[in-house]
């Protein structure tokens, strides 16, 4: 394996190139989906592509270039921050939107903006369900 040693920087650069280019691609896909998707929930779905695959691949590409150093640790912290906070923020956003009566848009039935909060209110009061008995 000794012949491989002079080629290692080139191999690292090629792998880093591939990771950075695919990360840029997923970044653009998420951004275009955020403009073109029809309602709030599908736009959240599009943005999650940016926050997981786009950021993850870009951070992996930069980690390969940084080597085993302090910068890699900082990049790992940024990636862990994305992986922990992005689902929490998306969940809070979806719950707030559903609570305020912004319904998802379905294909043939139009906007469910008035039907969804009623269903949500029925689920919301758990004591009421237990008093009335659960439908079997």
């Amino acid at each position, binding site marked *: 394996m000794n012949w491989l040693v002079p080629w290692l920087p080139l191999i690292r650069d090629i792998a880093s190139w591939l990771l950075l280019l695919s990360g840029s691609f997923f970044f653009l896909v*998420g951004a275009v989906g955020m403009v073109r998707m029809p309602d709030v929930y599908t736009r959240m779905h599009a943005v999650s592509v940016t926050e997981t695959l786009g950021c993850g691949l870009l951070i992996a590409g930069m980690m390969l270039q940084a080597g085993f150093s302090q910068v890699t640790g900082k990049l790992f912290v940024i990636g862990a921050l994305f992986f922990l906070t992005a689902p929490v923020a998306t969940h809070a956003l979806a719950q707030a939107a559903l*609570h305020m009566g912004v319904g998802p848009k379905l294909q043939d039935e139009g906007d469910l903006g008035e039907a969804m909060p009623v269903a949500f209110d029925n689920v919301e009061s758990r004591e009421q369900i237990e008093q009335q008995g659960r439908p079997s």
Partner: protein
Amino acid sequence: MSEAMYVIPALAILTAMFLAVVRALMGPTVFDRVLAANAIGTSAIMLLAVVGFLTGRPEWLDVGITYGILNLIGTFAVLKFFRHGNLAHSGEVRDDGEQDR
């Protein structure tokens, strides 16, 4: 190590930020704008990291970590304000079973 490989990710991130600004301007509900602001924050963190590598001085990643935490807290603050009307709302259920809105 060639710094020129970071030009394409930087341009892609700038394009993503521009499209997020477009969504924030034309968003029909406030949640679209909050989502776009969150996406702009994410793109700003990645742009900070990529430009740090592009100029050969990746010391700005600490600013990116701080900005990520501020992005999450800002999103929660705006969502809580638009859901409850004030920021001091506890979110607890009252005694009569009704939840404060």
